[in-house]
Every structure is written in structure tokens, then in C-alpha cells.
């Protein structure tokens, strides 16, 4: 079997390996949260407020990582907080990707007037500070996980569109596209059967990066109270910790650690994907 070859390739690209494993771990934690023997992340206890984690004096054995200001178990909140992260990063990145790739493909391939208009629209969206757009959108639509997903797409699609457009501008001058024209393929087929497969590797790397950004945007919106209030979120823990920073500094360290690790993981994954999928770099 080719198993050894796969193992060799995996170890030749440690970024991809670590990044992929990290993403799998985040997903596994999110999916397994209900199965784990944890307390309810929303359960409050007035007798156990701001308890420190196990390595600090004064901790309570039943709260491994301590509690927040309402006496909610932090370990459980951290684990359950991976669920909104998973939802938001998958949906947010996918939505940005779909919109951005379609705009980029059409704009780069058609050129001329449509390209001018689409490029101008991209420019307009980039004339806003990204977080400002996200905050205004959620304020107008009303807080919630799906508002967060939409705001991620609203600020993320331009990144895909610009890169894809630039790539298509180069690709469409190549011989295989000329050949497709000579064969009489319709524009739809050229876009999705000829051009799209060639940009997939790049789009995958962009998706990994966008997932990292989505985590941060969600954390920020949750931090200011604009994400979901029915679920435990990492940003929500941060906001609570920020209020009690001088009494219970450890509350903030846990979600910071989780977010930092996830963002680094996904940026490693993006780097690894770029290396693995780019035939020029691979050689």
C-alpha cells in the first residue's frame, strides 16, 4: 500500500500536519461537547464566583479551570464555546468563499465593463474598516450567530474576490483556455470546469486563513455582546474576564489561549496547504 508514502508526505509538510490536526481537534471538541462529563456551561452558582483554576491556591476540585463572575464552570464554557466557533468559522468562511470566488471568476474572466463595475464594488467595500461594517450590520440586524456569519461574509468576500480575479486574469491568457474557446465551450463551462479547478488550491489556503479571521471576528462580536447569548462563547468569557481583570485575571487567559492557539493553527494550515498544493513550491 501507499501508506508509507502518505506518512512521508505528511512529515515532509509539518505545517499541514499540525494545522490539520489542530483543526480536527477543534472540530472534535465542538462536536463531542455534549458527550463529555461536564457541568452545564450556563449553570450559575452564587457560591462559586471567580474561583481560580487548579494550579492556583483556593481552587475548588469540582471546577477544574475555575469559574467566572456568575459561578459558571470555565472548562465547560471553554469546551462548549468551541461550538459557536465551529459553526461560525465553517459557515462564515464558506459564505465569504462562495461569494468572493464567483465575483472574482466572473470579473476576471469577462473583463471589460463587468470587471470595471465589480472591481469598483470591491473597492467600495474595502473603503470601510472591516470591524465597523461588522458592528453596524449586527447592530442593525440584531445580535445572533447568523448575523455574525453574515457580517463575516460581508467583510471577507473581497479578499477572495481580489485574489481569484488576479489569478483568473493570468489563467485566461493560457493555451488551455484558448483551446476551450476553440472547442466551443460555453462561458459557464469554461468558468466552472476549466478555470475553477485551477484556482481550488489557492482558494483552500484562503479558506483556512478566513476561518482564522472568522474566529477572531466572532470573538470580537461576542466580546462586545453582539454574538449569540444562548451559548457560551470565547468572546463572552473574555468580556466577563475583562470586567474582573484585577480580581480574577485567569478568566481572560483561558479564552485568549484558546483563540490564539486556534488562529495560529489555522494560519499554519493555510501555509501548509499552500506548500502542499502549489506544484511550483513543492518542487
Amino acid at each position, binding site marked *: 500500500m501507499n501508506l508509507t508514502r502518505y506518512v512521508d508526505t505528511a512529515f515532509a509538510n509539518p505545517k499541514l500536519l499540525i494545522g490539520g490536526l489542530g483543526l480536527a481537534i477543534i472540530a472534535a471538541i465542538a462536536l463531542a461537547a455534549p458527550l463529555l462529563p461536564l457541568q452545564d456551561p450556563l449553570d450559575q452558582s452564587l457560591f462559586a464566583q471567580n474561583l481560580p483554576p487548579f494550579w492556583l491556591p483556593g481552587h475548588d476540585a469540582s471546577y477544574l479551570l475555575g469559574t467566572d463572575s456568575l459561578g459558571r464552570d470555565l472548562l465547560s464554557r471553554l469546551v462548549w464555546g468551541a461550538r459557536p466557533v465551529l459553526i461560525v468559522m465553517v459557515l462564515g468562511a464558506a459564505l465569504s468563499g462562495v461569494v468572493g470566488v464567483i465575483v472574482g471568476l466572473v470579473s476576471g474572466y469577462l473583463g471589460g465593463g463587468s470587471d470595471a463595475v465589480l472591481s*469598483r*464594488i470591491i*473597492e*467600495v*467595500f474595502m*473603503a*470601510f*474598516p*472591516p*470591524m*465597523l*461594517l461588522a*458592528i*453596524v*450590520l*449586527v*447592530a*442593525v*440586524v440584531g445580535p445572533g450567530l447568523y448575523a455574525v456569519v453574515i457580517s463575516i461574509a460581508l467583510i471577507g468576500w473581497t479578499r477572495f474576490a481580489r485574489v481569484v480575479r488576479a489569478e483568473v486574469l493570468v489563467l485566461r491568457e493560457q493555451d488551455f483556455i484558448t483551446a476551450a474557446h476553440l472547442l466551443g465551450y460555453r462561458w459557464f463551462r469554461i468558468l466552472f470546469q476549466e478555470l475553477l479547478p485551477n484556482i481550488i488550491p489557492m482558494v483552500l489556503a484562503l479558506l483556512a486563513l478566513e476561518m482564522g*479571521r472568522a474566529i*477572531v471576528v466572532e*470573538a*470580537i462580536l461576542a*466580546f*462586545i*455582546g*453582539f454574538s449569540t447569548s444562548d451559548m457560551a462563547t470565547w468572546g463572552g468569557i*473574555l468580556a466577563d474576564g*475583562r470586567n474582573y*481583570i*484585577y480580581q480574577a*485575571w485567569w478568566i*481572560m*487567559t483561558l479564552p*485568549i489561549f484558546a*483563540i*490564539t492557539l486556534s*488562529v*495560529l493553527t489555522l*494560519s499554519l494550515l493555510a501555509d501548509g496547504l499552500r506548500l502542499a498544493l502549489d506544484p511550483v513550491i513543492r518542487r
Partner: protein
Amino acid sequence: MALPTLLGVMVVVFVLIRVVPGDPISMMISGEASPDDIAKLREAYGLDRSIPVQFLYFLKTVSTGHLGTSISLHQDVLELIMGRLPATLELAILALFFATVLGVSFALTSVYWRGRWPEVAVDAANALALALPEFLWALLLILLLSVSIPLFPISGRTDPSNAAVFHTQFYLFESLFTARFSDFAEILRHMFLPAISLALPLTAVIGRVLKSSLLDAINQDYVLLARAKGFSPLYVLLRHALPNALIPTITITGTQFTLLVGGTVLIELIFAYPGIGNMLFGAAINRDLPLMQGITIVFAVVFILINICIDMSYALINPRVRLD
């Protein structure tokens, strides 16, 4: 170039704030209002007319500088924003200053000591600064430099007890130019953490780009010649290689500066810094549509102005652009 973008900005703001939620009036008032009152408000805001007419009306009022009255603060939106904008600009400029100084020293350090440990250390620091967004830097810096080692305050622009009088809203610059150094130091201490958090991602970009162009430059003949003339390596690096390597760095700093300005929204919020980013947050919480709209437009205008400045600076830096 800028005008169509500005028009597009207006369309986006208009759509985002007026059309998406359905009825802005219902967001402005409580449930107690009578249908009659609602109709009056709709008429006052021109909402009883068709969407294109509303848009033209909106363009007309905005282009004459009327951004309306804030619902939560009951003051003129433009006045409110102009009172806060200087604080945001000061923060962005200080962050740009930090990013440039740090980024250039990073690049010089790693090129001067290339192949030895300072290069490894600086490269690692750079990679980390680039990988984490300013949001995480802000929180990490609060924990490190304010909670574990209480060096810097984490909120506001001055100490609440400070009774100093300022004639402009540019506290930092005013205290510097009027030589009130104790005020200056206090304001700087308040601005330090927010400015550094904003600066770190840009620091990494500057460090990386300048390093690679410096590495190109030191292999050029003129550098070899300068070395052959007997100038010290440090002198050659600073006086011969650096000026030639700066152009790509200036270009990228310009484009990245808009990102930094955008980052102020969040940083002001985390540090309770009284700029327009923080005001946006208050407006969003109170669903103050005119104020949100005004801040969005002002930010977009600032972005477009920065881009125009960047385009013009290309001509100054690179004579080849000037010819055509």
C-alpha cells in the same frame, strides 16, 4: 477615482442602515408610540417616499454636511464626530510612529546580525506579531503590562483626576507643542498599550518587507564599493543600503495604514479610549442610526483621503511615476 468610490460608499451605507432592517422608525422608538406618531416620524425622515427619492434626499443632505441629529445623545452628529475624531487620529498616528520605529529597527537588526541569533529572534517575533490580530495583542498586553506588571493604565485618555485644560482635541500634540511634559507623559502612558497593540501587525509587515529589500540592496555593487572605500558595515547599511531599500516599505506602509486606522474601532473599545470607534460602539448599542451612519461615512472618507495621499506620495517618492 475617488468620487465613484464615495458614491458607492453612500449606497452601501444607505442600504445597510435603511433598507436591510425594514423599518428604521421601529428601531428608534419604543413600543408605546401611536400609529400617528410613527407616521409623523416617517414623514420627518422622508421615509414615506420611494427608495430612489430617499437615496437622493440622503445624498443631498449628506453632501451639504448635515449628518443629522444623534438619537441617543441629542446633538448634531457631525459635531459629535469632529469632537472625537482628533483622539482617533492621534492614536492612529502614534501607532504608525511605533510601527515604523519598531519595524525599521527589527529589519536593521536582523540584516546587520544576519545568520546569528538576533536574526532568529527578530524573525520569530515578527512571525508572531504577524499571526495574531490586534484584538489578541491588546488583551495579551493588558494582562502582561497592566495586570501582572502594573505599568500602564488600561482605559481612557487621561487620569480622571487630571484637571488640565486643552484648547484642542489633540491632547497629545497640544501638550507636546506647548511643552507641558508631565501632561504629555501621562497621555502617552494612556495611549501606549492601545497604540502598541495597533502597531504590532504593521510592525511585522514593515520588518519583513524592509528586511527583504535590504538583503537585496546589500548585494548590489554600490554597497560593495562603499565597503571597499573603507566605510564601516553599519555606516554602509544605514547610509547606502537603507535609503534605496525604503521605497517598497513606504508603499506597503501606506496601504497597511488604512488597516491600522480600521483597527482603532476595536482597540478604542477594549481600552475605553474616547475616539470615534468607541462612539460607534455606543451608537450600535443604542441603535442610534444617524450616529452610526455618520461615523461610517466619516471613516470611509478618511480611508479614501488616505488612499489619495498614498497615490500622491508615489509621485514624490518615485520619479518614474511622475513622468506619466
